[in-house]
């Protein structure tokens, strides 16, 4: 990349819009992804995550607005930019009759790259089957091959569309470690996901997209502080609910005999300390799921009414 664009963000979109008839597509997406960060692009399926990504890669062209990568227009500099980009498509298909190893050799050749040690290393870490035809691989194994080809040339920008679909938890952990290393290397990761916990685990910042619009862009830490959790305590005897309700962050408390269900915003520290005064037989914790996060962002603020139907109104944030 030229020095003139050395301080340009990894990704910038302005009013990026892609219309496909009435429902799908994205509307007025403004994003800025900084160099060296892991940016989580979070949204339910069909929200427009893949559309945004495919615009960045110049696979499709915007109806309005612009997208640039490292300060270069996504459309005008597509081939040059792709040297710097590694991409894992969302609904990916690999060449079924090739083996993983052959696929890496092919793409390495198209990149004019000879050294495949990094590919081998990544494949090893993700426990990837390299010598069987891709059509004989499980979904998870195909996904691993896709991940390795996206990372093997040490791209400055890694764009991953739903990268952990089909991966088993151990492999996921290793994959997250690899992403941490990519960031430590000063490189940038843009990953889409519909799983909040995943984005929380790996990303520095998150953009939430819903029905084609950016609902919010936030530091993951801030999102975490706001995120609500459901806690369910099983005590050996009924406990005084009022004590819990008084604690900061407790949004709702529902006692049911010896079971107490709490909805909590922010830290759970005080609650745990209070609960520990009693005999706790069991405690279940559940992250707020994505739908609930969206409801938080779309609900009328401070509204007492717990009416999901209203949450859809309004549109953009």
């Amino acid at each position: 990349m030229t020095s003139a664009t050395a301080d340009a963000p990894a990704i910038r979109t302005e009013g990026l819009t892609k219309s496909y008839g009435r429902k799908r597509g994205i509307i007025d997406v403004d994003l800025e992804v900084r160099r060296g960060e892991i940016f989580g692009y979070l949204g339910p399926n069909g929200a427009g995550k893949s559309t945004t990504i495919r615009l960045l890669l110049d696979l499709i062209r915007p109806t309005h607005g612009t997208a640039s990568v490292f300060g270069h227009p996504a459309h005008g500099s597509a081939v040059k930019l792709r040297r710097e980009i590694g991409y894992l498509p969302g609904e990916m298909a690999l060449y079924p009759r090739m083996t993983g190893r052959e696929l890496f050799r092919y793409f390495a050749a198209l990149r004019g790259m000879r050294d495949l040690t990094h590919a081998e290393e990544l494949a090893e870490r993700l426990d990837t089957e390299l010598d069987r035809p891709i059509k004989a691989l499980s979904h998870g194994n195909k996904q691993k091959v896709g991940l390795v080809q996206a990372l093997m040339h040490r791209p400055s920008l890694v764009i991953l569309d739903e990268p952990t679909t089909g991966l088993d938890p151990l492999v996921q952990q290793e994959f997250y470690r690899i992403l941490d290393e990519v960031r430590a290397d000063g490189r940038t990761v843009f990953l889409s996901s519909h799983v909040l916990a995943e984005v929380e685990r790996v990303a520095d910042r998150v953009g939430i997209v819903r029905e084609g619009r950016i609902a919010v862009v936030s530091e993951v830490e801030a999102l975490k502080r706001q995120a609500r959790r459901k806690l369910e305590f099983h005590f050996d005897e009924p406990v005084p609910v009022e004590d819990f309700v008084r604690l900061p962050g407790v949004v709702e408390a529902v006692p049911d005999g010896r079971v107490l269900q709490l909805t909590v915003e922010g830290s759970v520290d005080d609650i745990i300390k209070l609960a520990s005064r009693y005999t706790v037989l069991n405690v279940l914790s559940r992250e707020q799921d994505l739908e609930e996060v969206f409801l938080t962002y779309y609900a009328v603020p401070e509204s007492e009414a717990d009416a999901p139907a209203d949450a859809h109104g309004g549109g953009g944030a």
Partner: protein
Amino acid sequence: MFLRTITTKTLRDGRRGLLWWALGLIGLTVVTVAPYPAIREMPGLEDLLEGMPDALLALIGETDLLSPAGYLNSQLFGSIVPILFMVYSVAAGAGAIAGEEDNRTLDLLLANPVGRTRVVVEKTLAMVIGLALLGAILWVAIYLPSVAVDMDLDPAHLAAANLSAVLFGFFMGGLALMIGAATGSRGLSIGLGVAVGVAAFLVNSLAPLVEALEPLQRLSPFYYYYESDPLRNGLDPLHAAVLAVGGLLFVVVAVIGFRRRDVGV
């Protein structure tokens, strides 16, 4: 080594198919050429052919069925060979871009630093190389048996006939590639490609009989493939050029169409 470029990788993908095509062609030519001496000597066949109505002979496109060139034209180059070359190249042309799109591998391919022009050009090259291999195989598969049965064939004219078939394939494959690259639909590309090929064949062979079709004959690629009779006269440079330039034009339009559009949604 086959994984170095899009062209060689595409050929590698098609290697098994090409092998079957080659075996099929060899089988076809052997069963066609081997009985030639027996047919030529068949008593009364000549008289029978003499008595055939001109219209029927025109439909076959050949009036001298017992000469080596006449026999091969009627049995191979007038019908089955161009049909086979058309099928091969329409499949290759439709598979080039629309095929990768259908298989959802195009996103991944285009994530590499290769431009869309390069993808079309390399895929075209793979199609042309495949066709050229088929043409060469066909030449061997006809020439060797013809020598064995003492058939008096000019190897250069035989090469001209095969080259004409290759060019016809290039034209039809270019058309299919263009449709596939511009629309992303493999089905449309194959359907239209085959439809145009069949229409070209019918127009060319019916034109001498149906007056209304006569002005259309020169629009048919089949006319440029066959009408100059390359097996007897060698390659007609003008007719060959029409097919080659036509195919190239299709490829150019394929590039333009492919560069402009959204890829596989």
